């Protein structure tokens, strides 16, 4: 017959305390990291954004491939906004939010320019011959290639492009598409 002693109770309580400590530490480590920045809508801002991204990732365990894909998507999205939403007029701004909650990046770019048509990924296909290569849409195509989820919404004077990238350890080198 098992007799519950004070020692048993103390052991169980200590185990609970350790468990709660581990859970609290895990929650602390998984706190999302967020950066928001507002930049002038010009082509140089794409590279400025990359510098922000690099600084943001400095203490994160991010594989270089994932960082490269996020850089490419940010660059293409920023360029699209400058050239199409603001039509290269210097007065516009781009609001950028970068959020990392292990292991997922969420990047949101908001502009206040002209709404534009951003095609769904299924409407985009790689060129098979030189004649098929169109100068337009290549940047958007690359965004869809390197990011796991892309959505675009226009309304109330603002356009919002959201891109999501999962950076799992050992993530496939060839992006899904």
């Amino acid at each position: 017959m098992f007799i519950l002693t004070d020692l048993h109770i103390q052991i169980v309580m200590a185990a609970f305390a350790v468990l709660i400590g581990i859970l609290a530490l895990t929650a602390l480590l998984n706190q999302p990291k967020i950066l928001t920045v507002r930049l002038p809508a010009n082509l140089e801002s794409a590279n400025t954004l990359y510098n922000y991204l690099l600084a943001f990732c400095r203490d994160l365990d991010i594989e270089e491939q994932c960082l490269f894909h996020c850089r490419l998507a940010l660059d293409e999205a920023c360029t699209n906004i400058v050239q199409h939403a603001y039509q290269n007029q210097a007065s516009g701004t781009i609001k950028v939010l970068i959020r990392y909650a292990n292991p997922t990046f969420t990047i949101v770019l908001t502009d206040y320019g002209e709404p534009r048509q951003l095609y769904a990924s299924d409407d985009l296909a790689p060129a098979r011959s030189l004649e098929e290569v169109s100068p337009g849409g290549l940047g958007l195509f690359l965004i869809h290639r390197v990011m796991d989820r892309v959505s675009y919404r226009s309304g109330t004077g603002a356009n919002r492009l959201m891109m999501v990238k999962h950076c799992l350890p050992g993530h496939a080198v060839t992006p899904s598409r």
Partner: protein
Amino acid sequence: MHISVKEMNRVDLVEVNGRIDSSTAPELGQTLSGQIDAGTVNIVVDLSGVDYMSSAGLRELVSALKRVKNSGGDVRLCNPSERAMEVLELAGLSSIFQIFDDPVVAVGSF
């Protein structure tokens, strides 16, 4: 970004170093257009020093390729860095260009 051009007998070797994005790609486009305007139709673009290339760089390369193809020439790429090669592959353009590991071989291929 830094660009240098070496003019040879039948081929121009264009060496590009640094970042090719929407703010720097026009310079690459102007260089390639300038060579084509001057009568060059065979061009090798050495991408070994390119650490980053976006769709803006791809557009300039494709634009030059289309121009010289019309005159019976070609734009061939040489030793693209890992990241430049990945962007070419992602865009589905790696099969459109002839790509070489060595500039000597690339130049000699014409």
